[in-house]
């Protein structure tokens, strides 16, 4: 099998150019999908029979929570490739994921708290699902702090990558916490086997928001990856040619 396509991803100039070309192909569809999804979720979808209009926070909350886990998995996979194959670009991908993932995690926690107060009667309880999601936020913070604490870039890469890879243990705990333990958090309505427990006119905007958030993540990732490659390769000669 010809592996040149794979080895090309190990080349910073190639990745730098590729990321730059990809950005608009994700950014514009992201903007359009999120706008349509928001209109569908906030205007077209009917109110819920129990929560009224309060349920609409799900259109930001659930996609943020899904993305936070998806981004962590991406970060850990990239870190794994970086550790095992000693691929610098993979470490750059992982490093670029962390900030975005931390933001999505924070958004999912804050929107969840704002929903929890009127619906459950409390902003926060030490419930397994909520606690596991908070640990996810700390994993992102820990990853970023560890990178910042070590001056030598390749040592920082390896140490933080190991933390990211080990932290993947938390991902199934987040997903299955509501099944393994009694939790105040409701079971999944969409991300499960079987039919979603939500009518189509509520579900379609939710899936659009998920798609839009995912496209947005890739768009921001390509921008941050370019910045990360620039920072790492600031001494390299190919950069002078690109920038001139």
């Amino acid at each position, binding site marked *: 099998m010809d592996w040149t396509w794979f080895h090309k991803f190990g080349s910073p100039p190639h990745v730098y150019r590729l990321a730059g070309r990809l950005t608009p192909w994700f950014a514009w569809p992201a903007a359009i999908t999120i706008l349509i999804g928001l209109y569908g979720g906030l205007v077209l979808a*009917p*109110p*819920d*029979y*129990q*929560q009224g209009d309060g*349920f609409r926070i*799900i259109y930001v909350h659930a996609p943020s929570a899904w993305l936070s886990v998806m981004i962590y998995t991406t970060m850990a996979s990239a870190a*794994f490739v970086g*550790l*095992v*194959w*000693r691929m610098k670009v993979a470490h750059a991908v992982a490093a670029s994921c962390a900030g975005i993932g931390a933001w999505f995690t924070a958004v999912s926690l804050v929107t969840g708290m704002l929903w929890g107060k*009127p*619906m*459950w*009667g*409390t902003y926060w*309880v*030490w*419930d*397994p699902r909520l606690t596991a999601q908070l640990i996810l936020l700390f994993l992102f913070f820990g990853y970023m702090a560890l990178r910042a604490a070590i001056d030598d870039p390749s040592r920082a890469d390896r140490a933080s990558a*190991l933390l990211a*890879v*080990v932290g*993947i*243990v938390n991902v199934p*705990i987040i997903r299955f916490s509501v099944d393994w*333990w*009694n*939790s*105040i958090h*409701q*079971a*999944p*309505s969409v991300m499960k086997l079987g039919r979603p*427990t*939500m*009518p189509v*006119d*509520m579900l379609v905007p939710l899936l659009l928001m998920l798609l839009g958030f995912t496209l947005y993540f890739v768009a921001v990732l390509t921008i941050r990856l370019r910045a990360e490659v620039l920072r790492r390769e600031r001494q390299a000669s190919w950069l002078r040619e690109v920038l001139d």
Partner: protein
Amino acid sequence: MTPRRRRLILVSGIVAGVALAGFLVLRSLQENVMFFYDPTQVAVGEAPIGQRFRLGGMVKPGSVQRTAGTLRLAFVVTDYKRDVPVQYEGVVPDLFRENQGVVAHGRLGTDGVFVAEEILAKHDENYMPPEVARAIKEKHGGVMPKGPTP
């Protein structure tokens, strides 16, 4: 063995070790991770009776009794197998309704009545427009059909 293969085994081994450790910790802390006990667990003595704990289940239809002029409230929490009567004084969340999930934090008295200090509502994963909910209720004689778990 190539260095790459050795790193692969090392990293996978570390992840497997941490996963195993996490599994064992969560297993031994099972009771602390559990957010609430259901009425069956209370009945068979799994709940820490004598201490404060959380009781969760569904509010039994027709069981809610309010005392006029006060915030006093009595209702029955059920998991459709066992029931636990609950007393509470205070404001309850909007989603506190009959046939809805509820989590009460308090103590179980010797008389078998759970005295709650805090009431939280638990929402389920079902979302639907009001018209659909009305239609389903009419079909089932005025109550929303529910599964056996809260």
